């Protein structure tokens, strides 16, 4: 029996239910999922600034999950806020959404396109931030392009039709114009996608929630966690106010 704490690193409970739903649908028999949000934090993570604000409470939530006896933690945001810090502090596996998605994508093809959510006005800045992260994971050479739905994160749930229409057209353009062979959804809030929508484009579409869930379950089952040589436990007894 594996218990996984999913931390949605935002200050709104609006994702708890849809995230719990996608996790329940795809989890293995014997996995128990608990989804929580942050008591304090930004409504959504669309800027480097939002991410910085979310990181500390996310790491604390991860620490509480380990104290509470969970076997693994998923930080439920494509920006992977607090991921490295949580890996340092915790002795159970911690995964984000972006990193597992890129691994699954590169097992399935040669070049992936990431489709983000967010305000179209801010796309260039967000693309730069995402590309930095992709580089950090060592996947820049596998990234065909980064595109956007142009739908702000907080509007994703309400604008279901627009979201799907834009997703299909951006995914097709990624394949035809950018040479992508695999699509990665670049936000944990791009949910409620029917299998037909996902198969319509004709290339694999990776839903980060499921990639993260499966890899977290896998690590727990394999009884491995982040290397403590690289993610050394922070020294205790020091003042961190």
């Amino acid at each position, binding site marked *: 029996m594996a218990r996984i704490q999913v931390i949605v690193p935002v200050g709104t409970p609006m994702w708890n239910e849809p995230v719990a739903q996608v996790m329940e649908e795809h989890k293995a028999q014997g996995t128990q999922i608990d989804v929580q949000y942050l008591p304090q934090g930004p409504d959504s993570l669309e800027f480097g600034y939002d991410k910085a604000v979310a990181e500390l409470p996310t790491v604390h939530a991860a620490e509480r999950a380990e104290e509470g006896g969970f076997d693994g933690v998923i930080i439920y945001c494509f920006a992977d806020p607090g991921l490295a810090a949580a890996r340092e502090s915790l002795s159970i596996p911690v995964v984000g959404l972006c990193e597992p998605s890129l691994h*699954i994508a590169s097992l399935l093809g040669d070049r992936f396109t990431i489709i983000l959510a967010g305000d179209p006005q801010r796309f260039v800045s967000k693309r730069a931030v995402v590309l930095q992260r992709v580089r950090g994971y060592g996947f820049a050479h596998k990234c065909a392009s980064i595109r956007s739905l142009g739908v702000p994160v907080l509007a994703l749930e309400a604008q279901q039709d627009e979201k799907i229409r834009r997703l299909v057209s951006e995914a097709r353009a990624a394949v035809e114009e950018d040479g992508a062979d695999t699509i990665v959804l670049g936000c944990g809030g791009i949910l409620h996608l029917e299998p037909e929508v996902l198969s319509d484009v004709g290339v694999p579409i990776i839903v980060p929630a*499921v990639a993260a869930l*499966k890899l977290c379950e896998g690590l727990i089952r*394999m009884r*491995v966690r982040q290397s403590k040589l690289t993610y050394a436990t922070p020294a205790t007894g020091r003042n961190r106010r």
Partner: protein
Amino acid sequence: MPNIRVIVPVSSSMWNTPVRELMDRFKEADTQIEVTNLSKGPESLECTYDETLAEMFAVFAAEEAEADGCDGVIIYCVSDPGLRAAKEKLRIPAVGIGEAAYHVASLLGNAFSVVAVGPPELVGTQRRRVFDHLRMYRMDHKCASVRSVAIPVMNLEQEKGLQERRLLEEAQKAVTEDGADTIVLGCGGMLGVAEVVSEKIGVPVVIPALAALKICEALIRMGLAQSKRVFGSPPEGKRRVL
């Protein structure tokens, strides 16, 4: 109920039972595992020559698995023989234990070392082969080093004690001398030796069999398989004289 066929791409059946036992221990409750070996081919794959001889038969076995209604295929050798051809030919996910292991290792740390097996005179060849594959997967920048226990594959089972001792030595050197933070076992035949290494050396040890099993189960569960944009199906109706 996902049905996974594990193809051990050698002509020896000696691995079928231990591999099956290992997979059964770590699979999800509703996964079904079958393990087969090749009817023809080398008894172990210790160089590119062996690998090349095994590839065609491994691909045929993968096709047979799909024809039999399996949901996924695992090619059970770290050199992933026939993996790319199988990805082209099949619509169900084809996973190699090498590729899967490298991905899991890079989720756990910054730099992994592969500890391979094979005759002492082929240690350099193992290193070159692993790097050949890592470069193809474009993951060579995540590899700290390739070392070897220098024991032939066919001796692994009877020389368990020596294998464990050599693995501990090489893994320790990988960590202290090469800067590795994660160890990848470089052969599917290294069975029952991972735990002692992770305990004694204190780094995660990736067992390729389990990495492949978990990734194959995940892909089946996600309804995903290799992209046909880059693993296009080979043209039908063409003569391929064998």
